[in-house]
């Protein structure tokens, strides 16, 4: 049977994150944890393939023990198994170290439930915004790499070929790939389903499978966590908000207000930069 892995990440809901005005640092405590927006699109795409062709869908995440909630959410939607890769040794990983551990996890999942044919990831996480882990995992696994996918056009289980649409800045690219492959999902890809009642019931009882560093037989410890991460944060700061002097335009008529706005805009450097021409 087709084996699909879905990589997810539990992220803080950034709508709820605030800056501490005293220390000028980010307050992460208290922000509710959610499954990364784009990862849920990857899961939905996997579940749609499962509905049509039959598949085993394995969800995996690397994170703290509390990330089991994210796994359960995916089980409720219809994933078959969920793996939580969690260990202090994995902490502090940058994208290179993360892709190594995720690659090892997919390998190990393949040993347990059969080789993984297809991997879905979100195009990026909303807290890291790098979009680098997907390509990194594809490289580690030596899978075909299909990023920024907005649609799975077709899949042929016999020839093991998949056709996807990649949405780029200037258009859409139709690409055919031979499995095994890794796909990163755009928001346009689909609308994630709601959990079904049986799904919710199963998720309530479900215990995610937890793998620590000791569960991997040939893990190279120099490649994980902080040690395995070539990048470090030199410094970080909260950018000074340029104080904006808002000018509220008031006038007797909307036409007057519109005139006032353009008079103001034409007094800036904008017309020169935009090629606007004032006549008369």
């Amino acid at each position, binding site marked *: 049977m087709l084996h699909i892995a879905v990589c997810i990440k539990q992220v803080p809901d*950034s709508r709820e*994150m605030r800056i501490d005005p005293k220390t000028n640092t*980010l307050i992460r405590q208290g922000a509710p944890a959610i499954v990364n927006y*784009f990862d849920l699109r990857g899961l939905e795409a996997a579940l749609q393939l499962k509905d049509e062709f039959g598949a085993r869908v394995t969800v995996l995440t690397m994170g703290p023990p509390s990330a089991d909630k994210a796994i359960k959410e995916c089980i409720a939607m219809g994933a078959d198994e969920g793996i939580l890769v969690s260990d202090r040794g994995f902490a502090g990983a*940058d*994208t*290179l170290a993360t892709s190594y551990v995720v690659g090892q996890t997919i390998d190990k999942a393949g040993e347990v439930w059969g*080789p*993984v*044919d297809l991997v879905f990831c979100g195009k990026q996480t909303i807290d*890291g*915004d*790098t979009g*680098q882990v997907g*390509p990194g995992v*594809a490289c*580690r696994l*030596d899978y075909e*790499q*299909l*990023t*920024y996918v907005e649609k799975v056009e077709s899949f042929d289980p016999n020839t093991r070929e998949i056709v996807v649409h*990649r*949405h*780029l*800045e*200037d*258009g859409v*690219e*139709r690409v*055919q*790939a031979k499995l095994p492959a890794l796909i990163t999902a755009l*928001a*346009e890809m689909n609308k994630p389903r709601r959990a079904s009642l049986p799904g919710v019931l199963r998720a309530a009882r479900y215990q995610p499978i937890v793998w620590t560093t000791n569960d991997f037989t040939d893990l190279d410890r120099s490649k994980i966590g902080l040690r*395995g991460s*070539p*990048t*470090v*944060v030199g410094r*970080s*700061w909260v*950018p000074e908000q340029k104080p*904006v002097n*808002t*000018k*509220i*335009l*008031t006038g007797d008529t*909307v036409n007057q*207000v*519109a*005139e006032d*706005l*353009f008079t103001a805009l034409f007094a800036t450097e*904008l017309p020169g930069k*935009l*090629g*606007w021409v*004032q*006549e008369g």
Partner: protein
Amino acid sequence: MAEEKKSRPAVGLQPEGDVDWSQYRGILVVVEQRDGVAKKVSWQLLGEARRMADKLQAPLMALVLGHQVGHLVKEAFAYGADQVFLSDAPILQDYRTRSYSRVCLQVIREYKPEIVLIGATYTGRDLAGAIATHVPTGLTADCTQLDVDENRLLNATRPAFSEKMVATILCKQFKPQMATARPGVFAALPRDDARSGQVIEIPPQIEESEIGTRVLEFIQERQGINLEDAEVIVAGGRGVGSPEGFRLLQELADVLGGVVGATRPVVEAGWIGHEHQVGQTGSTVRPKLYIAAGISGAVQHVVGMQHSDYIVAINKDPEAPIFSGAHYGIVGDLFEVIPALITAAKARKTTHVS
């Protein structure tokens, strides 16, 4: 049903044996192109890299790759490169991760640049992620500031946590230090066609049989919605009321030579396509003029447009948070204000002429 595991390429974090990092010198910019037309970000990166290469007293290299792209070599020199690598072959006709990353790795391994810069486009990010994993080395995504310090370290600065913070990322132990950088942030040098230099041909060491993907076709977007490159954006939120309401915004955008943007709620309501979405789960934009109509100013939207040069907010609610970050505010009904703006703009011939 999966095939047997393929043999893996050797990927290890620690370089084999002792590596003499001092051999790594110079900055390499990978030039992105489609159908022989270079992406602007490539020349913008050359402009920024020129400054850093001079500081390092090291050569600035450009890699042009594709099929029938030889004419871009001259452009790469004109925009600041000292040395250009050209890989021109039918196998490179379409961008594919395996073939393009292979050529980049050939250049990196043989010519050992200390820094590699790639545009943070979809293609650039796809490519950079693959290269950095293979090398292996550190990669910083989507930078908005780049510099080198006295230790020859690349200071790669990028927004973090939905632009609430900014962080400078360093890669101290490995070379090349890699970064992707955001289009539209850096300025290209004035084109100087008198510049030239050494051209080195790089024959791609890859066979078609090694590549499991095939590009069937590329469908150019007729609408040409490219928020990231847009200089003027007229964006609408719930206040626009309906899909039809966006036609009015489109009309103003046309008059101003801009494109239409939207908030997540209206995209999710299906009023307009996702390619128009500005904000955390859409595009991050920095146009010269951003007109926000019927947008309340939720944080997830604001992080995507707060770096616009000029922001104009139109909202019925004088308390809407969007006003606090706007340069000009108009409290009123957008269905009255926008037609008035269209009339005023037409009278001034604001249509983009260049």
